[in-house]
């Protein structure tokens, strides 16, 4: 299933639709959004409208859904209690399932799947810890992590997807 079909299936779901359809387009979400202030093409209110109208290609255009910082200002301020930042996670998941993932995020997810850590343990950090009288970092049980990820089909995505969204760093 491609990303657009995934999104259509998601937003055709009655429960999902019910959450969105109470939006009266007041724009509180956009007014409080830190990203919208610096990237006018990122507009949460308009994004919600676009989803309601079923224009999924616009939702997936550029890498807009990945620009949410998950600060949850929109969720906190929405007078209709629409949890937009949470709904965006569903959209990201649907895009990711069809292989549309920013490169850097895919790399970070791979690092977590392979080492259990989002930032690598470096020799420098171990020396630094010792200097501060902190205990060494204990090893992570990677096998357990991979068993869990495998059961959710997570590594399947990691293996078969290649980033087709432009990241700013190579």
């Amino acid at each position, binding site marked *: 299933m491609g990303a657009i079909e995934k999104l259509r299936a998601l937003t055709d779901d009655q429960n999902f639709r019910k959450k969105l359809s109470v939006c009266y387009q007041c724009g509180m979400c956009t007014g409080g959004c830190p990203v919208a*202030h610096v990237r006018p093409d990122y507009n949460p209110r308009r994004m919600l409208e676009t989803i309601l109208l079923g224009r999924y290609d616009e939702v997936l255009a550029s890498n807009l859904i990945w*620009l949410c910082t998950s600060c949850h200002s929109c*969720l906190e301020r929405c007078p209709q209690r629409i*949890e937009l930042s949470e709904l965006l996670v569903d959209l990201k998941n649907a895009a990711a399932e069809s292989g549309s993932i920013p490169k850097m995020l*895919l790399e970070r997810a791979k690092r977590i799947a392979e080492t259990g850590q989002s930032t690598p343990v470096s020799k420098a950090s171990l020396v630094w810890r010792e200097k501060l009288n*902190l205990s060494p*970092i204990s*090893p992570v049980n990677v096998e357990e992590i991979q068993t869990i990820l495998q059961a959710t089909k997570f590594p399947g995505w990691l293996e078969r997807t290649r980033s087709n969204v432009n990241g700013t760093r190579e």
Partner: protein
Amino acid sequence: MGQGNRFAWFPGCWVSNRMPYIEAADRRVLDAFGIELVEMKGAQCCPEPYAVLGLGREAWFGLAGRNLAIAEEMKHDILTPCPGCYNTLKTANMSIRNDSSQRRRVNDLLSKVGREFKGEIEVEHTATVLHNKIGLEKIAGAIERPLVGLRVATHYGCHLLRPSRVTGTEDPERPTFLDRLVEVTGAESVPYMRKTLCCGGPISSVDENASYAIAREKLLKVKQAGADCLAVACPACMIQYDTNQHSIEKTFSETYGVPVLYHTELMCLAMGVPVGQIGFPHQVKLDRVLDKLSISRA
């Protein structure tokens, strides 16, 4: 339910590997109030709420459930210095506990690795423990070198506050607990615009310019307010405001010169911990802060 003053310590990847000085400062402060930190053996990344949650919610729940199960086996509440870890583990704890179908799915996953989520512990952040459990009165009694005259702008970090249905923060738009923790040191918490603005850090790998532009807004407001430094409660915000400050200055051809401290570092200064013991290895030098307080660098 956890046991009294003992916590399962969850420093998170960034503090463990990139900012151990935050862990050192936390330990100094918590130890002074009789808090014992027990290592969570075998725990992994929280998992972080951007890549892992964005790529797959079920995987995110499964791994968060694993960390929670490890703490449950220890019979301790989790304590972390990182709002990202705090929010991930607290959100997962609440959802898995209250949503029976989510709980079934997570426990299906955990059964494959011989673990089980029971919903028996809570998740705390160093700031919430200091403010709510230890209390301002007890902290005030441990202040040996009041930071009188220091003007501090506080920055909580989004995930320490929101969603408030998860964090329980009374007023997520106008929070006060970090300000109180700063003021108990004798410093002044200065009011400034855009106080609860996001640091922009999470999107730095997708759009660095937008990420920096968001951080710039905050740094300008802090500078305009005439604060001597910014006190943060989040390692990710620390990276954005301190580690990246020179890059942000370069990007916008501006100068901010805002020193950034983690909230327990500030408390260490007030408790008389020698500067050399924590190191304060920030990118933006703390000279302005230390000079104002006449604190020696030894």
